[in-house]
């Protein structure tokens, strides 16, 4: 059903029930995201896509659009909240871009640039979370995990449908785990998928860490904003 909403005062015609992040992108409005994957169920974990919908601040990725919805994206207050959430992720973990295999391909880094983050306003915590290296083709740099849940929800063992990745503990004691046995039977393309959907450098494919030269990595060729908007145009 065709409906009309407004984004930052501009009328937008779209289909009822479409995801707000997608609708915005289709209309050249970039909303930063870290956990959202187009076409997959909403995870609603990072909150980096916070916007105001009908007066209430909410994560855009969790909003199916409805007739008459009034959406605000580009306000000083909202932009600063989104930036603060990204900064919060930087201070909560150890995100040392120059020494990270994911640099240039990291969504957190790319989104940080996009919101013009310079330094986190929150005190850096420098957590010590032991890395997990037991699996043959994958290792986990746990202090980079942002708990987006992408791997937990979307990467499953193809034979048994069991979870390969999971979270242990809760709150600040939570950490990402991987089942070694299931990880060892992931086919190469699934290993790559897991490393690719990780929005940070937590899930790393062994042996191929620095294969793309600096300057030719994903977000160096095309910014995260361009990719988010450009994919819609094609």
């Amino acid at each position: 059903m065709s409906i009309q909403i407004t984004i930052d005062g501009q009328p937008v015609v779209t289909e009822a029930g479409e995801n707000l992040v997608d609708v915005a992108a289709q209309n050249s409005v970039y909303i930063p995201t870290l956990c959202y994957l187009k076409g997959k169920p909403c995870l609603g974990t990072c909150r980096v896509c916070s916007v105001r919908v009908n007066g209430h601040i909410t994560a855009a990725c969790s909003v199916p659009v409805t007739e008459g919805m009034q959406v605000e994206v580009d306000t000083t207050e909202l932009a600063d909240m989104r930036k603060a959430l990204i900064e919060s992720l930087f201070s909560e973990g150890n995100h040392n871009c120059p020494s990270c295999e994911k640099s240039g391909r990291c969504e957190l880094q790319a989104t940080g640039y996009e919101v013009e983050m310079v330094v986190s306003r929150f005190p850096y915590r420098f957590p010590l979370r032991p890395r997990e290296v037991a699996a043959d083709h994958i290792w986990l740099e746990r202090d980079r995990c942002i708990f987006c849940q992408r791997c937990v929800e979307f990467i499953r063992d193809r034979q048994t449908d069991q979870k390969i990745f999971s979270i242990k503990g809760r709150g600040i004691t939570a950490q990402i785990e991987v089942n070694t046995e299931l990880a060892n039977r992931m086919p190469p393309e699934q290993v790559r998928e897991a490393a690719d959907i990780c929005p940070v450098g937590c899930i790393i494919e062994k042996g191929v860490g620095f294969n793309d030269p600096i300057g030719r990595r994903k977000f160096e060729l095309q910014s995260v904003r361009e990719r988010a908007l450009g994919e819609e145009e094609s």
Partner: protein
Amino acid sequence: MNNRIQAIIQRYQTDRTRLLDMLWELHHLYGYLPDEALSELADGLNMAVEDVRETSSFYHYFHHRSTGSYTLYLSNTVIARMQGYQEVLDALERETGATLGEMDPSGTFSLYDTPCIGLSDQEPAMLVDEVVFTRLTPEKVSSIISQLKCGRSPEEIANPRALPKTDIAYVDQLVETNICKAGPVFFHNGNDFPELLKNCLDAGPEAVIGAITQAQLRGHGGAGFATGLKWKLCREAPGATKYVICNADEGEPGTFKDRVLLTRSPQAVLMGMVLAASVIGAREGIIYLRQEYIYLKAYLEQQLQLFREQRLLGNNILGHADFNFDIRIQMGAGAYICGDESALIESCEGKRGTPRVKPPYPVEQGYLGMPTCVNNVETLVAVTRVMQEGAEWYQSLGTEDSRGCRLMSVSGDCQRPGVYEIEWGTTLNQLLTLVGAEDPWAVQISGPSGECVAVDKGGERRFGYGDLSCNGSVMIFNRSRDLLGIVKHFMQFFVDESCGICTPCRSGNVDLRNKMERIIAGRGCQQDLDEMVSWGQLVRSTSRCGLGGTSPNPILTTLQQFPELYQAKLTEQSGVLLPSFDLEAALQGNERARIELTHHDYIPRELIQDPETEK
């Protein structure tokens, strides 16, 4: 394969959604959850063991290392801390030989603290396995521990007359109900429930919804959603089957009125559930009972049995061929967040208590994906009373925007802590007089998630959805209390209880707690206060659920009501460095590196003081 584990899996028909129950059974078997047992359970359920642990590690009553023969949980609340918590903890450590968080060397006692166990009217209190001991003193602790050492079980100590656990006398022996003021709604005796249900079934579901809507009954859990509308939406939602859930996960620190209702008015709760089932068309109901109330379980099971005998539960209820409904009790395992209805549903499905993304709402897709009606204990009793006495009677109580009565769990600095039934519209001062408050200074309304009210400023405010929308927790503090310390305790509670699914709540509450510690330590400046407000608003507005949506409230509301307390702690900034910046500590990293490079010795990081993690 271990036969006992296989038997557990079979008892739950390899149903992964009953994982919480299976984990409890394992826990009872071993006293903790051994890795091998979890692996076997995982194999039997076609799950990765990490997936099982994803659930088990979420709940703080599940242990993954061996525990002593007796597990002691001392309630660590601000009220307990006002009433002798520290002396009792010292006595426990001395008598058991266990330090807090550990097991004693002989393997007899494991000692933990735990957030509010719903006994703020009789603190200090502790759970020993499944038995509760209240009004603890060092002498009482000595007596209990020496008896345990002599081989008496916690049950024998707490229940020397060996009363059956199904009997209310057993519950009364363990805890006081302390109903200080009963009113027209909640503790009504002489009910004829078969007659009531018959009348409601005759009138039909639309009439029941109509009465509840006309009564303007709103949910008593805290959010205040219109109960009639919730039932109507759930009734109209398409679904092959539907569920009724009673939220008895009373976790807000300071409240205990649901415990008292479950003890004194359990059948009115059950009646409310049966009425909900008849209206929405449910066949199954669940009471989600927090583990802290485990001593009520047998008693509640007995109440369910009495209902079945009266044909108020089971097949063909009151002879209606198409009305089949029964209720099971789901035990929680220690997680404040499970009071959120969607987190509670996840927990009922054997998963982590993570609040769901909404929409869809539980009335559309709830338990097992089916339309589900989740109501608080107190709401269900109110429903029963509305149907007994009529909507007009209920409407005559309370105020224009808040009909009816509300139970208050009152604790802290007053002569008569306990449960009070008050009409909405009562002022805070009236309540304070009623409970015999002694020199009241600040009142924490609705627990840590609510607001702190300065009595001299807000004493004439009225309880009601339009103003003091209280969830039932009222903690009174007199002028001798350390309010900033209380705020810090509340922030630590939220740090401990955040499920961690979303960034602002997981990370932001830690930053807020750390700021609070900095202020209390006298190292804060005005910039810190400004940042607390700004960060607090960020957490409040961007979090996924009500936990993060309210967790900054202890700071934000005390800053507003008692700004002078914060101002008195501030330090003037001299020079270019913030007062919280410890130059010496910060330079120790350099010192460490120098020593390491010179001596090739690695110095463990924890030995070097980190300015930001310093407590």
